[in-house]
């Protein structure tokens, strides 16, 4: 007996919170705003936990329909909600991390203006994100998709009086739109071919089709879906908005641009795995984009001096890993990394926010240093996250990243190689950040008086409140979420320990029913490309698996070792360059000259886009659309028709001369016309 879960409540609760805070928040005290925000996001989290408790008694996938929506001929779409294992994981991540960040934000934003507005937007974001992941059809998901883009715009441009923040918000929204265009085209193709957008219906409609080796309409749909994912999840070529999005408050970066919104693309691709499985060309494209993005972003990350920018490029790079996983059809590995990434990247951003808060708004790492004694809690939690992302054994990042690299190797060794190099670079820049921030001598100004609010931290001098003491630890309300996330970063990976290392991969098993291959003659786990699985059925499944595992177990262990080695190498190099011999980086930079400049300037990608796309588009808009069409065609038509009417009436009004005799003349003329007509008719 499947209980009715009322899933629709989960998104609605934050929406109510957003409305209350948005409409009345200006009159509320900060405490009331906090209460409202915490109540509704906490309620969503509580409901998610309750769903977990009900989970075992559900028949999966669980769907419920709130109301019919579109009924146009044979096409139907409902406000429907969908729950399976994948949704459950996403739900816990979004509501859990979201709730923690709500708690953290109260401390971070306490001194800021627009307090109520921030929490209204944050709750609004939760509403849209939950709609996205709980939707039962692509259309409702698209609403959530667009909505999180809107919330992102509102939150990035939170300090909208600052030009750079407003522009960053616009950039995020517009670049997202480009991706959304691809998404929409994919939706149209799905409607055209399958007549429906419901997930279960589309999946069952896709089943009869075989693998399109050379491309076909399924490949087109998959590629277009990937375009949408590139926009939302900041992959090449649409990643450019994410670094700029750091203009927003740090909790926003943590929630939206690390843990939840940017993962929507990965979620969407995983949801559509039935389509992607049948389009090997699309899968290859996804894997290539993911791998390239991971490497590309990581290289930029090693030169950045703003602590948040480093983390931003790190996010882009880690998202690249997730797409690499999806591209080799290792969807559950991608989701696993999504989960661990939410923990450690969210923690990294929140801790970075704590650091920035402590030094009075400074974000440049060159002006930090030696903070580890002064802000111990922040230091230890950030250390946990840094070790996790670098893939140090035992922590969550190690398991998830390794899973991806192993699966990538099984598809194509080049993916693995680039992935390993990227892991090295990741470890290097993360430890560079770690050393520059927490070790050595303090190079900043907060000690000596007022560290006035660096612009990105807000338009108010943040140091005023505590400028007297210099560097200080953050309040408890900010530290508690850091500790919880640190705990998850350290221990969160144990749900997915692979068989090679002695665990039974609970995570993968949990998600197996979701990603069950729907192809006609495949095995029931989501391998891709392993040659053994194409043999006939002379050998039984179990024996086959045992044989595979044994042979691969040793290889997997070797590769795991290589990953660990690479991580430690990055740590060593960072220690060397930023602790032991801090003058070396400058010399290297000078020696590399042009190459270094290119990397520091993000390979001039923004400038290229501006020159190739933005300027011509603005030129066309101004010249053709505004002057040419709007002014000279549309306005001219209206103005000229009005002028014409004026002219005509100017002529006609001369009849009203006031002169009696002209009236008489007209009457006589009219009478004559009538008479002539009557005579003509009468004598015909």
């Amino acid at each position: 007996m499947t209980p009715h879960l009322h899933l629709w409540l989960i998104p609605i609760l934050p929406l109510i919170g957003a409305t209350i805070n948005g409409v009345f928040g200006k009159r509320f005290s900060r405490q009331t705003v906090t209460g409202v925000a915490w109540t509704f996001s906490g309620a969503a989290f509580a409901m998610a936990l309750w769903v977990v408790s009900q989970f075992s008694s559900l028949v999966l996938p669980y769907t419920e329909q709130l109301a019919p929506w579109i009924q146009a001929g044979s096409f139907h779409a409902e406000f429907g909600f969908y729950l399976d294992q994948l949704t459950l994981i996403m739900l816990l991540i979004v509501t859990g991390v979201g709730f923690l960040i709500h708690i953290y934000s109260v401390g971070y934003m306490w001194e800021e203006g627009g307090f109520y507005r921030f929490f209204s937007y944050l709750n609004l974001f939760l509403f849209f994100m939950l709609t996205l992941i709980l939707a039962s059809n692509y259309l409702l998901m698209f609403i959530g998709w667009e909505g999180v883009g809107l919330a992102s715009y509102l939150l990035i441009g939170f300090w909208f009086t600052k030009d750079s923040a407003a522009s960053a918000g616009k950039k995020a929204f517009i670049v997202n739109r480009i991706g959304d265009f691809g998404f929409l085209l994919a939706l149209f193709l799905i409607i055209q071919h399958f007549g429906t957008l419901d997930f279960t219906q589309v999946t069952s409609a896709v089943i009869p089709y075989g693998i399109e080796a050379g491309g076909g309409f399924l490949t087109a749909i998959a590629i277009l879906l990937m375009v949408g994912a590139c926009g939302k999840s900041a992959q090449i070529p649409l990643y450019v908005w994410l670094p700029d999005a750091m203009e927003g408050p740090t909790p926003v970066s943590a929630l939206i641009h690390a843990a939840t919104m940017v993962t929507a693309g990965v979620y969407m691709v995983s949801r559509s795995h039935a389509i992607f499985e049948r389009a090997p060309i699309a899968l290859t494209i996804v894997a290539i984009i993911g791998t390239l993005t991971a490497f590309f972003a990581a290289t930029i990350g090693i030169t950045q001096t703003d602590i948040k920018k480093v983390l931003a490029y790190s996010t882009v790079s880690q998202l690249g890993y997730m797409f690499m996983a999806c591209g080799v059809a290792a969807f559950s590995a991608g989701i696993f990394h999504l989960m661990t990434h939410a923990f450690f990247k969210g923690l990294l951003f929140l801790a970075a926010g704590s650091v920035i808060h402590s030094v009075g708004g400074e974000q440049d790492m060159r002006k930090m240093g030696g903070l580890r004694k002064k802000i111990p809690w922040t230091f230890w939690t950030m250390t946990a996250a840094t070790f996790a992302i670098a893939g140090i054994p035992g922590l969550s990042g190690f398991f998830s990243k390794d899973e991806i690299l192993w699966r990538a190797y099984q598809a194509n060794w080049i993916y693995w190689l680039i992935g390993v190099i990227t892991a090295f670079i990741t470890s290097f820049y993360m430890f560079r950040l770690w050393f520059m921030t927490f070790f050595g001598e303090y190079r900043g100004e907060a000690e000596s008086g007022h560290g006035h609010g660096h612009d990105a931290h807000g338009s108010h001098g943040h140091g005023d409140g505590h400028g007297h003491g210099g560097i200080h630890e953050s309040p408890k309300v900010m530290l508690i979420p850091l500790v919880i996330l640190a705990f998850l970063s350290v221990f969160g990976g144990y749900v997915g320990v692979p068989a090679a290392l002695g665990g039974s991969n609970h995570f993968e098993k949990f998600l197996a029913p979701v990603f069950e291959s729907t192809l006609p003659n495949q095995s029931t786990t989501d391998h891709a490309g392993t040659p053994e699985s194409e043999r006939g059925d002379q050998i039984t499944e179990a024996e086959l698996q045992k044989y595979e595992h044994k042979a691969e177990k040793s290889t997997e262990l070797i590769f795991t070792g290589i990953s660990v080695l690479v991580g430690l190498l990055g740590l060593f190099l960072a220690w060397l360059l930023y602790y032991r011999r801090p003058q070396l980086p400058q010399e290297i930079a000078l020696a590399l000259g042009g190459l270094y400049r290119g990397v520091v300037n993000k390979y001039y990608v923004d400038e290229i886009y501006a020159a190739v796309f933005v300027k011509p588009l603005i030129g066309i808009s101004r010249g053709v659309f505004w002057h040419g069409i709007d002014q000279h065609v549309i306005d001219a038509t209206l103005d000229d028709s009005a002028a014409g009417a004026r002219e005509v009436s100017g002529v006609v009004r001369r009849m009203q001369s006031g002169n009696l005799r002209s009236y008489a003349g007209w009457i006589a003329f009219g009478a004559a016309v009538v008479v002539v007509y009557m005579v003509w008719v009468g004598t015909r």
Partner: protein
Amino acid sequence: MVPLPYYLLLSGILFACGVAGFLIKRNIITIFMSIELMLNGVNLSFVAFAAQWQALSGQVFVFFVMVVAAAEAAVGLAIIIAVYRTRATLNVDKVDLLKL
């Protein structure tokens, strides 16, 4: 024995003169008199047709026309007097304030 068309022709000539006077003359009172002339022309054709069709109601109708014409003349002349008082002119071209 006068053929009927002669009467009608006479009536038409009178009517045409009336219209012409209405269009050409500048004095309001003269214009009014042209209207009376038109009415008289019409009266003649009524009586002529009554004689032809042997219907006495034609002559009764003439009677009514005359009554109405008299009433109209009275009111019209009163208006002319009022106009003269305000405009101090009887020239119809000068009374053109109702123009756009």
